[in-house]
């Protein structure tokens, strides 16, 4: 769009023209949004006009655009005058990242101890960790293998429903159901993977989007199997070595066994540590996979599928492995979600969930593990913090996403660390 283009040296006339075009767009948008309003007059709605506030709005857009352009240009000029970063800076940033990583892990481990009496904080942190885990799982498919998956929530749902059904119908416990549900989700990943192997980019995105909706609609409509829109309730919570986190008196309560006082937050804190452990395992697993032939082949497929074939790599298997492993990790997160909520329904697995998980991966920086954590924090905490702004919270959320994409188009952390670095035998430290 010509309006948004900016050259480093604009004349005054250019600037005014740019400001006027933005003000014009503002005017078009502002007429229905600000210029017209409805008033309730004795039960009847009447349309009133607010031209002064519209004029003020257009004025703000005009001046704001010009000021914004000037700020942008001064930034661009400063950046141009600065010398290019030396190579060492990139390596330094990965060391800083690992320090931040360990620091963050320490904070995450200590968090529920500090806030042990604040249920809201621990609950929100648990939600963040679920998204971190989902983000790390989807990162395999989208970030590493470069397959745009818009229906990731389907595998999350498969995991959650597998556990819900196994536990409520057959009395399975959390820890037995976890690997089984992961396996079921992985096979769904392969089922989705097969027909989409030849698709790329937009086409793949549409098919995966459809797959996500198919799973949700089956769950809504197959009432005998999934409980339909009513969902499945009273899903058992995870225990620890046969003990439960229930009030004393049931015989299996852990507080009785340990002889400590019962507190309702104990279960919340335990759940937090379960998801922390699951998320860390996911991270460790994905990190190791990335350095193995399979992981390197994922990245190679993302970079150039045809070259992969010419190197003798079976692209079909590589893609299916990515789908299966991504789906399995999503399934694990689903099991945890079902166990934590105690109740699941198709409502929890709508397209907007897929969109949020994908946004976490893209905003974080495709393929970056740390980026996923930062993006999950932003995307989960922003709407939470925004609760005070009531109806403006989605606006705040949207603005934050736009700003991240303007400042860091490659995601918050877009640096790719090589999986292998050659050190000449003489140079070893």
């Amino acid at each position, binding site marked *: 769009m010509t309006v948004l283009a900016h050259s480093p040296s604009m004349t005054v006339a250019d600037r005014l023209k740019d400001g006027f075009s933005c003000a014009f767009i503002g005017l078009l948008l502002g007429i229905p949004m600000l210029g017209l309003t409805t008033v309730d007059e004795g039960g009847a709605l009447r349309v009133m006009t607010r031209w002064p506030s519209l004029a003020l709005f257009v004025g703000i857009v005009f001046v704001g655009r010009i000021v914004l352009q000037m700020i942008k240009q001064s930034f661009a000029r400063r950046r141009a005058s600065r010398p290019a970063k030396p190579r060492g800076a990139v390596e330094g940033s990965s060391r800083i990242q690992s320090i931040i990583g360990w620091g963050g892990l320490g904070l995450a481990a200590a968090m529920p101890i500090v806030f042990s009496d604040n249920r809201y904080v621990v609950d929100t942190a648990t939600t963040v960790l679920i998204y971190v885990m989902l983000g790390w799982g989807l990162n395999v498919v989208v970030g590493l293998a470069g397959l745009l998956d818009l229906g990731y929530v389907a595998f999350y749902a498969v995991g959650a429903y597998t556990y819900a059904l196994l536990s409520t119908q057959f009395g399975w416990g959390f820890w037995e159901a976890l690997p089984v549900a992961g396996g079921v989700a992985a096979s769904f990943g392969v089922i989705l993977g097969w027909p989409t192997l030849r698709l790329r980019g937009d086409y793949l995105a549409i098919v995966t989007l459809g797959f996500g909706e198919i799973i949700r609609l089956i769950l809504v409509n197959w009432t005998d199997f999934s409980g339909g829109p009513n969902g499945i309730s009273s899903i058992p919570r995870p225990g620890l070595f046969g003990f439960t986190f229930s009030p004393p008196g049931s015989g299996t309560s852990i507080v009785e066994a340990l002889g400590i006082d019962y507190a309702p937050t104990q279960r919340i804190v335990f759940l937090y540590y379960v998801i922390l452990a699951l998320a860390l395992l996911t991270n460790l697993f994905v990190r*190791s996979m990335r350095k*193995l032939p399979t992981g390197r082949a994922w990245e190679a497929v993302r*970079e150039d599928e045809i070259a992969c*074939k010419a190197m*003798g790599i079976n*692209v079909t298997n590589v893609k299916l492995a990515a789908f299966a492993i991504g789906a399995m990790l999503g399934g694990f997160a689903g099991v945890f979600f079902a166990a934590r909520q105690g109740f699941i329904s198709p409502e929890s697995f709508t397209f907007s969930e897929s969109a949020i998980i994908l946004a976490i991966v893209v905003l974080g920086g495709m393929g970056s593990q740390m980026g996923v954590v930062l993006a999950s924090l932003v995307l989960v905490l922003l709407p939470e913090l925004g609760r005070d702004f009531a109806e403006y919270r989605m606006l705040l959320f949207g603005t934050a996403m736009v700003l991240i994409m303007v400042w860091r188009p490659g995601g918050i952390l877009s640096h790719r660390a*090589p*999986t292998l670095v050659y050190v000449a035998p003489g140079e070893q430290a």
Partner: protein
Amino acid sequence: MTAQQSLLSVQNLTMRFGGLTAIDDLSLEVPKDSITAIIGPNGAGKTTFFNCLTGFYKPTVGQVVLNHPDRGAIRLADLPSHHVARKAQVVRTFQNIRLFANMTVLENLVVAQHNALQKASAFSIAGLLRLPSYRKAADEAVERAVSWLKRLKLMEFINHPAGALPYGTQRRVEIARALCVDPILLCLDEPAAGLNPKESAELNDLLTYLCREEKVGILLIEHDMSVVMKVSDHICVLNYGRKIAEGTPAQIRVDPHVVKAYLGEDDMEDDIKQGGVAR
């Protein structure tokens, strides 16, 4: 030339796209331990021939047979593209360089050894457990990559992202990556395109070295006559998908059909235009 001596034998190969015949009844023998060049005007069907050879296209008619020293005759046209590299050890490069641009040179060369490494990692299980057998295989893969990089004078770029390298260097990295697959026949699609005269001369030395010392058969598509005439043992000229001449560089240089195809009889411009359309 008998079938015994030839490494690759192309038999009545025809490739049609709808009504367009890109390759028309092409038969060709590629001798062992030699450099064979395929030349021809734009749109003569050279790259299509490579695509048929390496499993990217299924030929309409005809067969391409590779006489593998250990595995006997392999019918390449029946193999899926990844088996051409894996089972038949026929590896190609691309006209428009296809490196894994965001990965380092070393990673590119290790990815090329995927099949051997994947086997050693027992589909990631031995790799995840970091068993010594896998670690040994991984070290060997790096060593192999390093040894090729040394031979191709690319060691200084080993940890650089491949996409950020100069064009000529990327071409060499692509050849190094193909060599890591352990080819018996290396198919190079315009390796000299975009190289300066000095780089072309280096490419000549490299190709001669690979063929004479490493015993890798080379099939070459090239427009740069300074490369083709110097290094080829054998040249095949295509025009409109047909073979119009075959022979040693000295024979090709004076062949009337070739001169006509390249320069035209009356109007050179007209010929180039036609050549550009027939793809």
